[in-house]
């Protein structure tokens, strides 16, 4: 079914809508990577089987739809029943019959499967009422969880490609760029470079062969919004890229997808094939004579390829080594031709902006950072998952209102944003509105939207080392400050966390961090010191504790921490004995327990399960001090 004119497009959308309205009742089963891991495939299978057996699709007009990731993965497998709008969490195949009989057949809600508010424990059946979703404003993720990624008609019925039709038929390339400029859209990859300015530079660059690239590398640990968009609504990205190509005059496009996202590659491939089939991609798009095609390129497994020039080397089949960007990619990018490279979320926003207009997008956000931003809220927070919010919302509201507060109500300590190039922000920054300028000023970065919440049981010096170890593994090794600097910085941290820190270590770290920030060739090296510098800026006392007193305030550094049971408080509940991996806790149930220091590896599992605060930890002191004490 090929659309080769505006009229044909409208007819196709109409037909798609009728198909949907025919479905009086719908069951949405989330088939994103998260829910699949929890067994949602079996749940979908059970639904399909029982619907067929009972002939419900005929009698009730029931339609089963496999959708992309709703973003609430921790509570998966997720099932939504429409038109009631009820969300069921942790659904297992044997619950299917009950859902069909109760909710689908006669609209009753299955109490035990409904989401319960973590603090008040009250059931919240309606999808829209759950705070996790209520406070969100979804633009880039507008169709995720609503459309079946493998069915283009479903996307068409939900407004897909409307922006493209408007762009190709009503607007000139400059007007398209002006629309994006009016929206105030900035790059969602992390740096926040104004998208319109980037497009305009590429449009004006000389060269008849130009490229459009979607950066789906998303190497930041703790970030998975790009995965969810690519898996859940690939058409929004495809549409955005065609619009971008039209604006800058490019005819070849690439989507670079991470090696760790196999499902995204599959869904994207299906969507591209369907888009070509329907005349929305490839030759003579929508009959307007504009040609543009997209190839999917699977990454090789290298975080550095998230950096634009390294990504282009990878697309050229080369090693992912960045090049100095003294000449911008908009003039000499892929194969030294003018190239536009934007993040997955940016492309998805573009398609919404062209459909609804720049002013509609610019209503949200702050003065300089317009629109909405998707975050992956993870770590020690009750509601972990994908959220999309207007720019300018405060960290406190995100973590406590939407995130439902800290796990097990432990005290909040820090939130890490921007991944390995970002920083850790303490309690004092909780009232910061989240946008590019504020986060950078506070010493962190917007980055790709990873937001990792940490409680008092997280050692900030260990977090800084975690990022250093990550970067040592992911550095491409080309330039000296990054390759050698990261190795030496990690060596200093290893020393500190074993209690062998030296007084001048902090000075040496700061000097090396400055050398890397100014000397490195690409953003990976230049931003590598950010986690170090931000933890030094806000949690300097923890460094001093480790170096001078050989003590870890969070009790996580094994070499420095000693666990003991406070005998008077111990109730003999035996929980800790079961949790201990090395059997280091001695004592029968109902009796006082004690820790055998010889076997104890200070992993802290006992401390986490003990409900009576009968276990405490303290610093072992610096090795030479501890040795003298023995």
């Amino acid at each position, binding site marked *: 079914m090929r659309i080769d004119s505006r009229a044909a497009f409208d007819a196709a959308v109409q037909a798609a809508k009728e198909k949907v309205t025919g479905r009086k009742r719908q069951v949405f089963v989330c088939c994103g990577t998260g829910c699949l891991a929890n067994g949602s495939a079996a749940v979908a299978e059970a639904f399909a089987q029982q619907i067929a057996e009972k002939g419900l699709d005929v009698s009730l007009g029931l339609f089963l739809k496999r959708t992309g990731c709703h973003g609430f993965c921790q509570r998966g497998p997720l099932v939504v029943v429409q038109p009631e709008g009820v969300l069921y969490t942790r659904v297992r195949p044997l619950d299917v019959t009950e859902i069909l009989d109760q909710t689908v057949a006669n609209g009753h809600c299955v109490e035990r499967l409904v989401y319960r508010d973590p603090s008040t424990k009250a059931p919240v059946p309606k999808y829209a009422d759950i705070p996790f979703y209520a406070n969100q404003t979804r633009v880039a993720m507008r169709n995720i969880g609503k459309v079946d990624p493998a069915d283009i008609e479903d996307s068409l019925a939900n407004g897909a490609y409307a922006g493209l039709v408007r762009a190709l038929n009503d607007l000139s390339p400059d007007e398209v760029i002006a629309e994006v400029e009016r929206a105030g859209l900035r790059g969602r990859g992390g740096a926040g470079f104004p998208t319109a300015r980037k497009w305009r530079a590429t449009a004006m660059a000389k060269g008849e062969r130009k490229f459009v690239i979607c950066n789906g590398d998303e190497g930041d640990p703790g970030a998975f919004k790009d995965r969810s968009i690519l898996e859940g609504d690939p058409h929004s990205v495809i549409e955005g890229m065609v619009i971008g190509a039209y604006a800058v005059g490019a005819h070849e496009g690439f989507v670079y997808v991470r090696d760790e996202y196999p499902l995204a590659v599959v869904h994207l491939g299906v969507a591209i094939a369907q888009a070509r089939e329907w005349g929305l991609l490839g030759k003579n798009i929508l009959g307007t004579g504009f040609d543009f095609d997209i190839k999917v390129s699977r990454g090789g497994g*290298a975080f550095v390829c998230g950096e634009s020039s390294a990504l282009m080397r990878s697309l050229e089949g080369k090693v992912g080594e960045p090049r100095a960007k003294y000449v911008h990619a908009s003039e000499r990018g892929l194969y030294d031709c003018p190239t536009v490279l934007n993040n997955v979320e940016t492309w998805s926003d573009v398609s919404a902006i062209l459909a609804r207009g720049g002013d509609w997008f610019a209503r949200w956000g702050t003065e300089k950072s317009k629109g909405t931003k998707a975050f992956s809220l993870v*770590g020690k927070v009750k509601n972990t998952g994908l959220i999309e919010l207007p720019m300018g919302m405060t960290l406190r509201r995100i973590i406590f209102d939407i995130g439902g507060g800290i796990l097990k109500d432990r005290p909040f300590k820090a939130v890490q944003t921007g991944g390995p190039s970002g920083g850790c922000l303490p309690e004092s920054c909780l009232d910061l509105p989240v946008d590019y300028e504020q986060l950078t000023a506070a010493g962190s970065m917007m980055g790709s939207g990873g937001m990792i919440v940490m409680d008092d049981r997280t050692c900030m010096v260990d977090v800084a080392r975690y990022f250093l170890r990550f970067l040592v593994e992911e550095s491409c090794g080309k330039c000296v400050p990054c390759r050698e600097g990261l190795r030496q910085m990690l060596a200093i941290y290893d020393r500190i966390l074993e209690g062998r820190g030296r007084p001048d270590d902090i000075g040496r770290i700061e000097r090396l961090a400055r050398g890397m920030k100014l000397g490195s060739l690409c953003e990976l090296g230049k931003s590598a010191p950010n986690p170090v510098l931000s933890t030094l800026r806000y949690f300097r006392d923890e460094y001093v504790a480790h170096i001078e007193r050989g003590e870890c305030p969070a009790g996580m550094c094994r070499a420095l921490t000693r666990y003991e049971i406070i005998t008077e408080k111990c109730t003999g509940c035996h929980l800790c004995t079961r949790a201990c991996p090395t059997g280091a806790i001695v004592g029968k149930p109902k009796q006082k327990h004690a820790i055998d220091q010889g076997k104890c590896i200070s992993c802290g599992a006992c401390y986490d399960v003990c409900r009576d605060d009968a276990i405490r930890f303290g610093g072992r002191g610096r090795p030479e001090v501890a040795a003298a004490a023995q």
Partner: protein
Amino acid sequence: MIGQPCNDLRPLQEILDRYPREEAALIQVLQDVQRAYNYLPSDAIEKVAEGLGVPLARVYSVATFYKAFTLTPRGKTLVKVCLGTACHIRGAKQLVEEVERVAGIKPGETTPDRSLTLETVNCVGACAMAPVVIVGAKYHGGVKTADIRTILGSAASLAK
């Protein structure tokens, strides 16, 4: 000698026929070879260099740069423990140590009977279900140290 020949290049020829003879296809070809042979055989790398007209040294450089490729055969089942930030602060380190204890191998190594390979990966995008362990194609979320033995299950000749 680093790497191992596989002496059966028929599947490789099929892969090469699917791609144009240009350097840009190199990483996609190596991905397919890795999937077909479960590693990059040395003679396959030489054939790919010839097939795509790319110097052998450059193909070898790409084969050792990207983490998706290995030059030695991996175990039948690949166990990946995610060390992303969310998984790290939910105790992924202990999981890696538990697998090391149970299967007797370090990250990057394969059990002597070639049944299981342990690898760490820096985030697979399932952070909401941290900590995550992937056994073969099956994702496991919210894994505790005690679950490791059950998750690995029959995959490995587990050290009792």
